[in-house]
């Protein structure tokens, strides 16, 4: 039995950052990279299922990214993934979530897992699209924003709750194999031990190319994408009126605001 987990190394911005010269992204030097928060939860969910299973279960993580993503993949290995797979080709540069999904689906076909997890969204581009588009290319049942899951590896169906708006949940049964996008809070992701981090550093990250997956250059990158970034810019934000001074002065002004409110409310 096998669970495949699509993961992404996301980027957060340094406090002061600059837009790249072509105006279509932030300069790479200002990007702080880490494993996508949502993916931490989907990996944990797979590892928990493996631990609870009586039969053997293989947990495989896959990312469509250049070499720098090995760091995130090794983090997954340290947290319990059995294998890590990275797929890249320079032609994939500029891929949108749908082009990435096309590659993930090809990788999933080769791996033939019993279940595929992805995060609900990535914290940097928040498209919330990659996992569900992957399901479309695979022709698999799919569901988004799963906040609790009851699944035994190899089972023909799974029962889960999806988290709706405003504190509402819905219980759903789905045929397997399926693609589920996993929500924050579904579990408590473990920390990697020093020993497992050391072991993960020695494990290989398997690398595959376009040709390995029998994809053409036209199916990925900008030509395989359903959207294209024209321009990235720093928005004019509504500016909060800053309260200055030392901590005591700031607290005094805050207290005034609270008392004004209470005066109005009274």
């Amino acid at each position: 039995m096998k669970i495949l987990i699509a993961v992404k190394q996301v980027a957060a911005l340094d406090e002061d950052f600059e837009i790249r010269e072509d105006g279509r992204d932030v300069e790479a030097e200002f990007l702080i990279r880490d494993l996508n928060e949502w993916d931490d939860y989907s990996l944990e969910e797979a590892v928990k299922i493996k631990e609870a299973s009586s039969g053997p279960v293989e947990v495989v993580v896959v990312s469509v990214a250049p070499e720098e993503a090995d760091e995130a993949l090794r983090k997954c290995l340290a947290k319990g993934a059995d294998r890590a797979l990275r797929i890249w080709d320079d032609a994939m540069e500029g891929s949108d979530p749908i082009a990435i999904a096309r590659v993930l689906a090809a990788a999933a076909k080769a791996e033939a897992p019993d279940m595929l997890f992805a995060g609900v969204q990535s914290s940097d581009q928040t498209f919330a699209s990659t996992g569900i588009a992957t399901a479309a290319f695979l022709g698999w049942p799919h569901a988004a924003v799963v906040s609790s899951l009851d699944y035994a590896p190899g089972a023909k169906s799974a029962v889960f709750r999806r988290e709706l708006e405003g504190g509402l949940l819905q219980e759903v049964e789905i045929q397997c194999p399926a693609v589920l996008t996993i929500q924050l809070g579904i579990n408590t992701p473990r920390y990697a031990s020093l020993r497992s981090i050391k072991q993960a550093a020695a494990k290989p990250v398997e690398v595959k190319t376009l040709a390995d997956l029998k994809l053409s250059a036209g199916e990925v990158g900008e030509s395989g994408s359903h959207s294209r970034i024209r321009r990235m810019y720093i928005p004019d934000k509504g500016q909060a009126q800053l309260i200055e001074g030392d901590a005591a002065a700031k607290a005094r002004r805050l207290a005034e605001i609270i008392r004004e409110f209470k005066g109005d409310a009274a």
Partner: protein
Amino acid sequence: MSGVLVIAEQRRGELRPVSLELISAARALQGAEGLRSAEGNTVTVAVIARSPELFLDSLKLAGVDEILAVKVAAAEFDPDTFETAVGALIEARKPGVVLVAHSVDSFGYAAALAAKLDLGLATDVFKAERIDGTLVATRGGYGQKVNVEVDFPGRSTVLLAIRANTFKPPDQPGAPRISEFAAPATASRSGGRDFIELSSNDDVDMTAAEFILTIGRGIGEETNVAQFKELADAVGATLGCSRPIADAGWLPKSRQVGQSGKTASACKLYIAMGVSGAIQHLAGMKHVSTIVAVNSDAGASIFGVAKYGVVGDIFEIAEELRRLF
């Protein structure tokens, strides 16, 4: 191809408010009145439900040219049903733009539909316009620190998932044409069972609280919750939290403010301490008239919606503030 197709969203017998906002987004896309009258430049609203007739009256609004009642077997949202129905609508009507809500339901099918039907796709869109005839959608990136403009070269139909609370719903009634649309039958591979209301033994009602003090990831450790609880009590505020605090189990889920938690509907003063301001959190509080943000990161997005901002150490400020009450 032309015209805008809006997919209304309903749940448990009620039209979700964002459905009406989508109509305004559609009208904004059409641009000037002159363009509106051009042939084929219409706004069509489709309502997909077991009993679509229940929702027709609420959709008879200015700017809507036609309402399509699409009857389906599924009682509630189901990805396969919606993919089939919206797919059939697109094939039949060939709209230039399809608008759906950026919501949990659309997360479940919009990207699959775009992948299958070769549609342009952008989600969490808060601005859509035509620039020199090119459809351009604007969304956020890198934790809302940048705006990202995307376009859709070579796509004759583009699906946009629109962020809720971005467009004002139309306030004028209209007299659209009403038609029925027969969607192909679907063999659903998943089935929704019961809805479950979030409950807890905490009796707080965040939707009724007028003064909320919210804590976020910035508080660092569970042991620090107590001091902010005490501060909230002292100043007379209801203690709320952002998602990470509830997920970690430090406060009950019923105190979570945001898209998947509660909306601070009655709140007039909202003090956010150590909350970065993820878009999902803002969805539950950005309407509050007086928001005060306290955060050590001057670049935190919460300062973009706050009236007052305090850049500084939340513990130090909390301690100083406690002394004054």
